[in-house]
Every structure is written in C-alpha cells, then in structure tokens.
C-alpha cells in the first residue's frame, strides 16, 4: 500500500506483467511462491470437499453430498457421456480431476485475499496440457497401434496423392504442435488478461481516490467497473475450466474413434 501511495505522487503506474511475479515466501527458494502455494491449497480444498461429500453417501443426499454429486454429474453427463461415448467411464477420473483442478485454481482469481488465478502463470497450464497430450496419444497408440495411427494422421483417405505433400505437414502440425499449444495458451491468456483487467480498474480507482476532488468522484465508476468485471471473470473462469476439459475429452474421443 505504501508503495502505491508513493507511486500516486509521481503519476499512475499501470499494472504490467511484473505484477504476475512473486517473491519467494520462504527464504530464496523459487519453488515456494504464492502460485505454487495456491496449487497445493487447491489440491487440499478439492480433496477435502469431495471426500467429505462422498464419505457418508446416502440415498437421500445431504446438502454436501448433493453439491459434490452435481459437480461430478455435470462433468459426467455433458463432457464424458456426450463426447467420448460408451467407453467414457475409464476417463472420468482424469476428466474430473482436470475440471476441478482448473476450476478451483481459476476461481482463486476472484477469491478474497488470494485473488490471483494460478493459471495465469504459463507453467501450470503447460503441465496440465502435457498430461492431456500424453493421454490422448497413448490412447491412440494403444487403440490403433503405432503405425496405423501415424498413417491415419499423415494420409487421410479419399485424396489424390500429390495433395498429400501439402496436407500432411498441416495434419502433423495440428496433432503434435497446434493442439497442445492452443490448449495451454487459451487457458493462460484468458486468466492473464482477466487478472490484468481487474488490476487496471482496481489500481486505477485507487489512484483516482488519492487525486483531486473530481477524480475522487470518478473513482466510484472505476471501482464499480471492477466489481462488475469480477462477476464477468467468474463466468470466464468457469467457462475456461469447462472448455479445457471438453477439448481434452474431444481429443480422447478422436483417439478412440476408428475412422474420421
């Protein structure tokens, strides 16, 4: 706060990428910063929530059990059953873990006191994407065999031979580069931009509040916008968790399908 006040005297400093870098919490270890701590916290929160909601499972569900089951039911119905099809049960643990993990870490972005979406540090989306990447390639190789799988990627049926020269590089790039790239970038960029937007309106409002009389009045609008955008962010954060899981499921479904 005192830093901010000092800055207010010398003009407004807009938030930048530097606001996403944190000092280590313990000593000088770069492995113990706020985002890392929040990831561990999310694992604890998710585990505690779903263990308590499933522990005393009853036919007439308690409120806790109902909450847990509706989250699971949502992932199972709209993502698992609809996208993957009859074999979806094998992948439910994976999809459900991804969904809850991404969702909780995104929601940290608007959670009071934490207020930082973990997924706005690119390392975290990348590591989840690596899991999805390995899973869908592994499922493909196991389901179709390595050579038929590569053949299916490189040579799609029903195309005159010379055209393969142009299409094959694009197909290879789609499967091995663009898919994981877009998966990680979409989540990262959405969380990064959303957090930056909130920072701009909150810090801007605070700066205006410490300026002249008319500006003090204007700061109401800035804070109002920040509050409105917080609700907007809530929607984006849920949507991004859903889309990430949905696309993972789609890639797995593609791996399981016999023909295109």
């Amino acid at each position: 706060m005192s830093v901010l006040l000092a800055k207010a005297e010398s003009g407004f400093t807009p938030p930048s990428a530097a606001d996403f870098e944190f000092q280590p919490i313990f000593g000088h270890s770069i492995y113990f910063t706020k985002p890392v701590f929040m990831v561990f916290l999310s694992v604890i929160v998710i585990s505690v929530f779903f263990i308590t909601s499933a522990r005393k499972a009853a036919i007439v569900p308690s409120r806790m059990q109902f909450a847990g089951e509706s989250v699971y039911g949502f992932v199972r119905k709209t993502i698992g059953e609809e996208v993957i099809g009859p074999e979806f049960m094998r992948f439910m643990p994976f999809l459900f873990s991804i969904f809850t993990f991404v969702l909780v870490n995104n929601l940290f972005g608007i959670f009071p006191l934490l207020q930082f979406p973990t997924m706005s540090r690119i390392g975290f989306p990348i590591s989840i994407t690596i899991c999805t990447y390995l899973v869908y390639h592994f499922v493909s190789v196991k389901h179709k065999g390595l050579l038929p799988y590569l053949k299916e990627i490189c040579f799609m049926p029903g195309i005159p031979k010379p055209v393969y020269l142009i299409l094959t590089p694009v197909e290879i790039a789609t499967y091995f580069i663009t898919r994981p790239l877009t998966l990680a970038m979409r989540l990262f960029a959405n969380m990064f931009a959303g957090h930056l937007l909130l920072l701009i309106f909150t810090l801007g409002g605070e700066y205006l509040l410490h300026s002249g009389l008319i500006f003090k009045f204007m700061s109401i609008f800035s804070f109002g916008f920040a509050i409105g955008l917080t609700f907007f962010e809530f929607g984006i954060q849920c949507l991004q968790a859903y889309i990430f899981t949905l696309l993972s499921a789609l890639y797995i479904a593609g791996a399981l399908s016999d023909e295109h």
Partner: protein
Amino acid sequence: MATKDEGAFWSIIGYLLSGFLIWGGIGWLADHFLGTHILFLVGMLMGTVASLFLIWIRFVKE
C-alpha cells in the same frame, strides 16, 4: 449437439493455425536462406488453402 459444435469450432481454429504455422514457417525459412521475399507470402497462402481444404474434408463433406 452444442458440445460437438464447440469442438468443431476449436478444431477449425487449430487447423487454420497449423496451416499458417507450417507453410508460413517453411516459406519464411526459404526466404531467409534463398534471399527472396515472396516465398513467405506464398507459403502463407498455401497454408491457408491446405487448412481450408482439410476443414472442408473433415467438417463439410461428411
């Protein structure tokens, strides 16, 4: 149905991106080593054509 449409939407973006990336990249590299200036543009156009063709096969023809 909405779920499928959403999937198709992102797959189409993926195809377009990889078309640009690969053929644009090849064109840029060719420009770099041959000292020309036109191949990057040619590569981009070729990539677009390739992506659109793939999208047509995957999503329209079926």
